[in-house]
């Protein structure tokens, strides 16, 4: 009886050990598989987020490109209407008037008209160049900004100057496109709301960082109010800057003008 009891006890122990080993084995495999599932899901989530980010970035770049083109066309349209159109209308009227004048007066009118037509031709040539303003990829940021400054000065809406420090380098096509769009937005806001007389655009090319600084001497704005406004220009500029990894600092006070500083690492 004792022998049978001992044997049953041994059997019981062996069964327990086998079942325990099996359970442990299954547990280990399941833990490994669960970890694999967890990491795989996390990895897929990361990939999806990366794809969404990439799409958003591409969309924003396209949007910036589109807006630059739109702005260029708007500027060109304004230039044709306000300048070339006016000059040519004046020439037309002068020539109409010249038919009834004597010979010497006629010559004066013709000479003056010729000069005005030549000026309009030059303006048209400049305008034609400005159509390629949106093509920052081929022109580069600096020539594009210089052309913009020239256009602003010519328009006499504001007196713009550009300061450049350091040796010029490219920070990448997309980055330059976005920077130029921010500059355009700032200029538009200045022209529309700031009542500024002067605009200073500074580009500082440091070894590892580019700083674009935009200053106007306009009426300025209340920083808090502007920040809380939905869809405000400042918010837009910040969002665009974040897209290319740039840091934006906006400084403004009522009556003391506005300053926008955009800093971008060369590597980003």
């Amino acid at each position, binding site marked *: 009886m004792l022998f049978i009891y001992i044997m049953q006890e041994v059997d019981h122990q062996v069964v327990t050990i086998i079942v325990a080993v099996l359970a442990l084995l299954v547990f280990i*495999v399941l833990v490994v598989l669960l970890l694999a*599932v967890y990491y*795989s*899901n996390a990895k897929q989530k990361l990939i999806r987020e990366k794809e969404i980010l990439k799409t958003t970035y591409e969309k924003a770049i396209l949007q910036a490109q589109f807006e630059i083109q739109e702005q260029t066309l708007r500027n060109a349209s304004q230039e044709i209407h306000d300048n070339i159109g006016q000059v040519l209308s004046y020439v037309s009227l002068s020539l109409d008037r010249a038919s009834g004048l004597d010979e010497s007066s006629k010559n004066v009118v013709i000479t003056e008209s010729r000069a005005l037509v030549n000026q309009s031709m030059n303006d048209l040539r400049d305008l034609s160049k400005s159509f390629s303003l949106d093509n920052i990829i081929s022109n580069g940021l600096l020539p594009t900004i210089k052309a913009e400054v020239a256009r602003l000065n010519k328009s006499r809406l504001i007196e713009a100057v550009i300061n450049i420090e350091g040796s010029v380098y490219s920070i990448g096509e997309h980055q330059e496109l976005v920077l130029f769009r921010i500059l355009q937005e700032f200029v538009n806001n200045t022209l529309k709301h700031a009542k500024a007389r002067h605009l200073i655009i500074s580009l500082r090319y440091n070894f590892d960082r580019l700083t674009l600084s935009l200053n106007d001497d306009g009426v300025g704005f209340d920083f808090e109010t502007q920040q809380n406004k939905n869809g405000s220009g400042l918010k837009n500029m910040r969002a665009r800057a974040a897209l290319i990894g740039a840091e934006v600092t906006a400084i403004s006070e009522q009556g003391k003008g506005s300053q926008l500083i955009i800093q971008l690492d060369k590597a980003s």
Partner: protein
Amino acid sequence: MVLSWYHFFELTAFALSLIFLSDLKKFKIGGYVAYLLLVCVTELTASNIEAFGLYNNHFVYNIYIVFATAISLYIYYQILDYKGKKKMAYLVLSILAVLYITINMFFVQGFIDYDTYGNTVNTSVSIILPVLVLVKLFINDDIKIKLTDNPYFWICTGTLIFNLCDLLILGLQQFIQVKKITVGGVMLYNIIMPIFAAFLYGCLCYSFILCRKLTTRLSLS
């Protein structure tokens, strides 16, 4: 005719593989129809040996091991989809494995005794290959399907767990037999393995349903 509870899982898996055959083919696992047919025939024959006038079921399982190994190797060959040198190495090793089991059955352990060497090879193949597939699934970034939504994941999980337990239990089989270790008069093997068999064929059933779902989803998108 004896029909144990876990046989229903095998028969269900076989039925589902037939129903969703076209979907299984799209996932390159159409071979499961042959495999599950073999499993069902083997299990039903082995459970009813008296009806076939056999003394024990070792002969049935020995034949099963040869064919099951060959079919498993074919199925994983399709799933792993190796190219170049890897493909060549896989084919050579597969042929060697099947040859080894066949030679063992004919000339070494014979038909009457249970071919433990053959079974060890079969079980090892059924552990290594699912691990390779799982690793491939884990490191592959291109796959758009979530790991738990992937039919291969459930096939490999079921196969891996079943065969790990099978290897352990079969390793102790002789010890269990000699010591006559039973629970309630039933051999330990016959208590534990049906549970894992049910898990394996349950996983297969689920993976076949996933094949169907994914095929429908992909054809809709």
